[in-house]
């Protein structure tokens, strides 16, 4: 086989995969863009037409969109921040050799392995103010007077964040654990010879070498957190200022059948997540070069 034949074969072998990428990736994104310029409601299909930029004008003046964007950002920053700190702590702990680590490793992964909807339903039962386990434990410990309404107006967002932290900290921990494993032991031995303290070792060896892994974890988690839907849908339905953009988009697209405006918001969410990811990747590269 000469080079040309090989190239042609390679193209044909890649063709199915490319087709999938185009059909499942590019096509939906492009058709969303196209839809965002139309007036199109599934239930009023006869009124379909070109809408120009009116959907985007509506987006700018849509208070719910901006409020939900703020809530989504808050959820993302707090939950990813907590997951990073706790995940790092867990990874450091697991990286120490001690007995029963295999059991620890596998039990750690359980929350992450559960489907989110199942985990969310479980949390909504645990957090129920009257029959929930959390309140009954608090009551038995004598720490609670009136039952705490975890999913009520004051604590709803906090509870949602805690459920998310419980669920996805393992993901961060495992990525960081892989990172810790990749750091050669010689560095630590050398540091020990030089008489470096624990904090110094952590700051000058562990953290810098772990940075690429932290960046990957943060990137994945941020993208996921920004699109959070199922957890909130089950726990609060978006009540008490916990509605995120995905929940609002779902309402508009599926409950109202408004494909035009729903697509406009999807495009906005796409752009936000895209820019955010690019920013994180760039930050990652810069901090990588700095070493």
């Amino acid at each position: 086989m000469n080079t040309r034949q090989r190239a042609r074969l390679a193209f044909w072998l890649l063709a199915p995969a490319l087709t999938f990428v185009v059909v499942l990736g590019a096509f939906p994104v492009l058709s969303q863009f196209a839809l965002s310029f139309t007036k199109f409601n599934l239930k009023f299909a006869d009124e379909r037409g070109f809408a120009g930029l009116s959907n985007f004008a509506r987006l700018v003046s849509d208070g719910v969109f901006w409020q939900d964007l703020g809530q989504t950002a808050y959820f993302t920053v707090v939950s990813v921040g907590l997951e990073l700190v706790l995940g790092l702590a867990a990874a450091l702990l697991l990286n120490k050799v001690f007995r029963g680590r295999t059991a620890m490793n596998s039990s750690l992964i359980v929350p992450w392995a559960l489907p989110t909807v199942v985990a969310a339903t479980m949390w909504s039962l645990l957090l129920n103010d009257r029959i929930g386990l959390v309140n009954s434990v608090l009551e038995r410990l004598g720490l609670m007077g009136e039952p705490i309404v975890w999913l009520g107006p004051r604590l709803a967002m906090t509870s949602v964040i805690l459920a998310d932290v419980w669920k996805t900290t393992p993901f961060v921990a495992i990525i960081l654990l892989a990172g810790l494993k990749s750091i050669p032991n010689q560095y630590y031995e050398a540091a020990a010879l030089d008489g470096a303290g624990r904090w110094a070792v952590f700051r000058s060896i562990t953290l810098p070498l772990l940075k690429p892994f932290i960046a990957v974890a943060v990137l994945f988690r941020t993208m996921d957190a920004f699109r959070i839907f199922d957890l909130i849908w089950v726990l609060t339905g978006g009540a008490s200022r916990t509605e995120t953009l995905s929940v609002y988009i779902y309402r508009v697209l599926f409950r109202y059948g408004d494909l035009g405006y729903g697509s406009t918001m999807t495009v906005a969410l796409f752009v936000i997540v895209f820019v955010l990811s690019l920013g994180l990747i760039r930050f990652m590269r810069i901090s990588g070069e700095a070493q």
Partner: protein
Amino acid sequence: MKTMSAVVLCCLVAVSLVACSSQESGEIQIVFAAGNDPSGATEALVDEYNAAHPGVRVEFQTMPANTDTQHDVYVTYLSARESDIDLYSLDVIWTAEFARAGWIVALPDGHIRPDEFLGGPLQSVTYEGTFYAVPWFTDAGVLYYRKDLLEEAGIPVPETWTDFRSACREIAEPRGMDGFVWQGARYEGLVCDFLEFLWSVGGTLDETTVVESPAEAERGIVEALGLMLSFLDSGISPGGVLTYKEEDSRRLFTEGQSLFLRNWPYVWSMAEGEGSKIRGLAGIAPLPHVEGRTSYSTIGGWNVALSTYSEHPDEALDFLRFITGERAMKKRAIEGGYLPTLRSTYEDADVLAANPHFASFFEVFQNTRNRPRSPHYPRMSDIIQENVHRVLTYEIEPGEAAADMVRELAEIMAG
């Protein structure tokens, strides 16, 4: 080239697998999509119909239990012109939406004899003066109370909110129980509860009132919200009510932790069933109202409609007549406890023997009202839910919520 033909072969196999999924058979197939019936009565009826109609095979397809999910699944099917499903069971609030979208067809003249049905359910199948579905079973909000505790205290079942509140204070408070639990989570159930409170103070969300005299509509809303807040502020209702759906509130009542409960008729058999701590101790009554007004119950329940995309409309209509007919209603009432929409079924001796409480429900059903009937209902529902819930969580004042609600609803109603 061998490799090349292998690639092509793979593609061919994939295509033929997709193409194989359709099959041929001599009999006409009718698919009826509805929520699960745990009693098995519906399935038995379908089997019975199939046995009596050779050449037609009806298949009962169970849909997701969650109402909102079912709605969204149907919207997806029907906007894709799905022809596999012939008959859909629809929540009473969907008729206008599905009819306006052209997804369900107007029933032929004479298919429904109006005087045979209960008024509320019949209104729910009507869109622009035409019947688009047949009422299948009904539901309405009722007040459950603890017969034993009221009798012990010598207090009659309260008819006004004033008496209701003092009953809560006298009986529930000293016992450390909750006075009244209802559905206050932000979801469709909140709309049902809110409307009942609204009607009980003489308010309304009728199109004419909302569009033409918004100030009057706002007054009613403010009063209803004040009533709901008074339950929370006085501790008659626990703070958790704002996160409760039907089952959360039902559990507190059947656990004996609440004096009153607003819920749907299904609770009755659970209160009387095994595992209930209040067997034989519960009573049913119409909801209370403000002095000089009347209370109304929000209508729930389901209707059956014929899909526009059905390929066998005549056969489907025949089955529709059967499954919403007297015989089916009776069987489903006796075995499944489903509340009939036909008036005559409430007088049937067998039905009453199996469900003695139907007589009290029939009384409640005399004063029922529908939620707004509009193709834009999902949006209207969200507007109501959001504004009510934000008041109950002290995010905004009742006056502000009422003004927002009326303005937004009027915009939609006026088109």
